[in-house]
């Protein structure tokens, strides 16, 4: 395991991070999803040692705790570009060289070319997409084994996003490196993530193999009475509407066998999230 989060627990004045646990194997991408304020960023900060949990542990690269050596092998992208805004990309390279023992200037320059990030231009004049690509270029230029990314593609157009997703797949293609990415771009995660972890109000609601989730679950749609009659062990949540209801089903194969006449749609992560997180939805 590249990353093991074990029962991370932290009480804030207005918020509780409640025994967060999940595991990220080598060579894999885990998508962390959940509402804003659910605890995703907080969890990531604790993983990085930027905040301390009250109890529980984090193991990175097979050992507990995060050492300086570990940090040098973790690439991080958080929303705000943490660099001095008057720098050029060439200056930034020099700064990073002083910070990361494994800084790979050549890799960095290759990313700059690949991402068409111009030199002699102050960072503050970069577009959002360019800033994001620059953050990724830096994160991937010091031989990191783990990328921890908080919303790396939000606000980016589909063309840039596709480029970045390809980059992620490239990053894990040696089978040793992994990515933990929190994102609202659930469509992207449905395609390239290997695992999905949903955090809701400080708790892990599920953490699963993406394909088992997408193809093992489903959304049943029918009138209220029909869905109410479905065996409750199959139903995770029901949402009623003025013209019908829908239910989050946790076993597609069994459902199709026992209720072949009820419409069962393929799961999509957005709908799943709404059904598991929205207040007026009845959860079993």
């Amino acid at each position: 395991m590249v990353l093991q989060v074990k029962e991370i627990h932290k009480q804030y004045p207005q918020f509780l991070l409640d025994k967060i646990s999940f595991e990220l194997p080598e060579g894999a991408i885990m998508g962390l999803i959940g509402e804003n304020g659910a605890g995703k960023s907080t969890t990531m900060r604790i993983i990085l040692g930027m905040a301390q949990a009250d109890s529980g542990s984090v193991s990175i690269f097979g050992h507990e705790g995060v050492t300086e050596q570990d940090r040098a092998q973790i690439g991080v992208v958080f929303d705000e570009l943490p660099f001095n805004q008057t720098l050029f990309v060439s200056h930034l390279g020099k700064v990073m060289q002083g910070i990361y023992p494994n800084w790979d200037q050549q890799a960095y320059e290759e990313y700059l070319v690949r991402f068409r990030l111009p030199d002699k231009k102050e960072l503050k004049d970069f577009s959002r997409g360019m800033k994001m690509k620059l953050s990724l270029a830096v994160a991937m230029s010091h031989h990191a084994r783990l990328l921890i990314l908080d919303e790396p593609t939000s606000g980016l157009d589909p063309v840039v996003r596709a480029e970045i997703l390809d980059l992620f797949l490239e990053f894990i293609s040696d089978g040793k490196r992994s990515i933990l990415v929190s994102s609202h771009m659930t469509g992207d995660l449905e395609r390239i993530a290997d695992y999905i972890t949903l955090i809701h109000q400080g708790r892990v609601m599920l953490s699963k193999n993406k394909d088992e989730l997408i193809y093992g679950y489903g959304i049943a749609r029918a009138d209220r009475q029909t869905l109410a009659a479905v065996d409750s062990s199959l139903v995770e949540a029901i949402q009623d509407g003025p013209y019908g209801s829908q239910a989050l089903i946790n076993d597609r194969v069994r459902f199709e066998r026992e209720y072949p006449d009820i419409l069962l749609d393929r799961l999509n992560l957005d709908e799943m999230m709404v059904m598991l997180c929205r207040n007026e939805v009845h959860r079993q």
Partner: protein
Amino acid sequence: MNLIISNSSGHPIYEQITDQIKACILSGELSEGQALPSMRALARDLHISVITTKRAYEDLERDGFVVVVAGKGCFVAPRNLELMREEKRKQVEQILEKAVEQAKAASISLEELGEMLSLLYED
């Protein structure tokens, strides 16, 4: 080899990959002993998750079409005639299932259907 994947069909992507690679092997397009792309390279080139290509390859191995050699990769298994026959049999059964469904929907009797089958077979 072409792998044409539909994002919107109900058919899971790993199944689509498995089915199409099986077809390539049955048709001879992929020959015995030939190396398949690594599951990671395949994921990258199809822009999908590794866990999906991994599942596809595992299913191919389970069904006897490929052999995974640790550290070396995934190779087309030696031609197993019984396996090929079984696979073809499955495909024909699926097509017949559809025909039966439609016949029933159109009130065509089993007898009539049988007659149609005999005529077609003799052509």
